[in-house]
């Protein structure tokens, strides 16, 4: 345990300071306070004061954690705060499943597994900090823990996760499939919908596309039109809507 317990206060304090300052200073956070689960718990009018109260508690606990000497009581206070966060997340998940938690900054994502994992991680870290530990803090352990906690923070995704995924998409090109041999039906329908032929017949149409097939560079599209059948011939190449032809015929059943 040498050094492990001594490393924890720094990690916890870092996150408490971040959370406290965001709640106190962020204008976006204040504007979005009404959409968080805390607004549901405390009432929309009291959301901003409630956030300030939580922020002051977070900053106070962070201050006593950072200022020597480190007493077990201070780590216990941090553990109590983290247990409170977990309880709040459970409440948010149950009572306001679409609201964001407002923990470390404004974002619109509801409480998810990562938010729970982060709160649980902080709780375990605070519990680890309770036993007296004379050893010097382990810098690498503290940095690794901070990295894990940052990775669990959805608030920071736009700074690293989205650019990383964009980069992977650019390198791997997962959607760069070879162009299909056939023209997609939607492309023909887009041309059809803009054609004078379709506009003149659309009031008669009673069904969606019944049948479609390709022949001689044309795509035939068949619709029901009450007791008649509307058949359109749409060119497979070119984008001239006036080239679309239409005919209304008696339903050729039994032919």
């Amino acid at each position, binding site marked *: 345990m040498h050094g492990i317990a001594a490393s924890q206060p720094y990690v916890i304090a870092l996150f408490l300071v971040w959370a406290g300052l965001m709640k106190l200073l962020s204008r976006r956070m204040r504007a979005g306070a009404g959409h968080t689960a805390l607004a549901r718990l405390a009432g929309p009018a009291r959301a901003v004061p409630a956030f300030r109260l939580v922020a002051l508690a977070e900053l106070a606990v962070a201050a006593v954690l950072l200022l020597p000497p480190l007493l077990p009581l201070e780590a216990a206070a941090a553990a109590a705060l983290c247990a409170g966060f977990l309880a709040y997340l459970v409440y948010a998940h149950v009572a306001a499943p679409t609201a964001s938690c407002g923990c470390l900054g404004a974002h619109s994502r509801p409480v998810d597994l990562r938010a729970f994992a982060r709160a649980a991680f902080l709780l375990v870290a605070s519990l680890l900090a309770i036993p007296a530990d004379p050893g010097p803090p382990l810098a690498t352990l503290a940095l690794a823990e901070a990295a894990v906690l940052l990775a669990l923070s959805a608030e920071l995704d736009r700074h690293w996760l989205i650019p990383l995924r964009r980069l992977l998409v650019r390198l791997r090109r997962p959607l760069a499939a070879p162009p*299909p041999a056939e023209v997609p039906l939607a492309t023909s329908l887009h041309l059809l919908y803009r054609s004078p032929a379709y506009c003149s017949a659309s009031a008669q149409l009673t*069904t969606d596309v019944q049948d479609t097939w390709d022949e001689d560079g044309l795509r035939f599209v068949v619709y029901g039109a009450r007791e008649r059948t509307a058949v359109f011939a749409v060119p497979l190449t070119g984008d001239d809507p006036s080239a679309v032809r239409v005919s209304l015929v008696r339903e050729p059943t039994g032919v």
Partner: protein
Amino acid sequence: MRSRRDVLKSAVLGGGAGVVAATALGSLGPEAAFATTSGPELEPGTPDPDFVEGRIRSIKDNTLFVLGSNMVFHRIRVVDGTSLWKLGPVPFDQAKPGDGLYARGVRMPDGLLAAESVWLNIVNIKGHITNIKDQTLHLDHNGKEVLCHVVAGKSVAIRSDAPPSADLSMLKVSQHVQILGAWRPDTNEVDIATVFSPH
């Protein structure tokens, strides 16, 4: 013997025109066309009797037995002239129990709906792309993940007001999209018909 397609083909190529001639419609002027489309006036707020929504419980011959989300039971008759959509026009045997549907048609006196059009599993969802992997868009739709699969030859993207394109490679992580597609029943997965991308 000529097939139905041959007859329709010769009709549109032989007599087909750029617009429907008035004679082809009898005496149908615009006002007559509107007159035939307007049915009995519906009270605002009352359900449209010619529309059904629900999930298929069972299929017998050409009749779909459908339970609506309001727990009302419907019978839907599918005939030769009915159009079925499931990621595109499909034959009747593609309708399976468990499929969700929207149907429009004519209500018969015995309560049966003679369907003109049936759309199976059709969904229209908005969200933002959280990731793109293996021909699949991961979509965040109100905090829930929806996996949207690209189907070769069927899926198209419409970027702004450009014509539909089978090339979806311009889609980016974190952008907003609207996806029209076919839900895979009882999963969070959708096959893409059209992706609408604002830019």
